[in-house]
């Protein structure tokens, strides 16, 4: 299963990005192979529609969960129809490394 995490940088030491559509990087973590992939978000400077475009990007990577700080109003209907789970973690001080550890303990 793949999990997408919004990140402020492209390392495990980076913090979680509180925004979904305009986050700096997407971290795609594979819970089976433990592989990590960093994707720079092409929609940071989008005038509008950054959220739906980011949903498409994440869905094309077959992620089944998204961890972010908050999601915009256009996102929920799209993710519900794609059956992707949203997890809102309102702790800007959390590092990507810590979130991956939490996911590993869980499984």
């Amino acid at each position, binding site marked *: 299963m793949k999990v997408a995490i919004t990140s402020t940088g492209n390392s495990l030491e980076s913090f979680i990005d*509180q*925004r979904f559509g305009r986050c700096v990087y997407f971290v795609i973590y594979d819970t089976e192979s433990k592989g990590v992939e960093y994707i720079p978000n092409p929609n940071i*400077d*989008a*005038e*509008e529609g950054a959220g739906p475009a980011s949903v498409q990007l994440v869905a094309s990577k077959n992620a089944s*969960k998204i*961890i972010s*700080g*908050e999601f*915009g*109003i256009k996102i*929920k*209907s*799209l*993710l*519900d*129809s*794609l*059956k*992707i*789970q*949203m*997890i*809102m*973690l*309102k*702790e*800007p001080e959390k590092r990507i490394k810590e*979130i991956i550890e*939490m*996911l590993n*303990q*869980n*499984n």
Partner: protein
Amino acid sequence: MSPRIKTLRKVLNPPIIKGFKPYGPDTEKINSLPVYLLFEEYEALRLCDYDKSNHHKASVMMGISRPTFTRIYASALQKIAIAFVEGRQIAIEGGKVYFDSDWYECVQCNCNFNNPERDKKIETCPLCGSKKISNFIFDNASESPDVKHCNDKCICPSCMYELEHKYGKPCNQEICPKCGHLMKRKGTPNC
């Protein structure tokens, strides 16, 4: 020109059955092709005639405009009438819909999450695996204020007036207090 893309209709309660079959002595002989009642048409019928909401209230609940709701409702009645008169089956399927999911909160890691697969019950937090989860009702007013800011700015493309970006409010809905022009986000192309 291709038509405008349909907005996703929100379905709160999916039907508990997949459809209806006619019965009687002559059901073998008649047209056996089913009438396909879309999920959104089922939901329109449920909100309007079962819950007795008016079209305006029901349209808000489905996230669509009132005229669109009325069209969907009319199409639902038309299809049911066809099925009754011609003695055809009704199959409830298809349509541009999403099934609304509920929110949960985890006490241990202080996160909120939803359950997009309604038929499976969630018992543990997807992040920390804790069982201390409870249902969560979203109320925009009760959100903590500390996440409601970011360092971006809205800028007026005509007089270059800058305004602190309000979290959750699109810049292109902001009106410049100086010249009344619509604002843009600072840093985007052309501004």
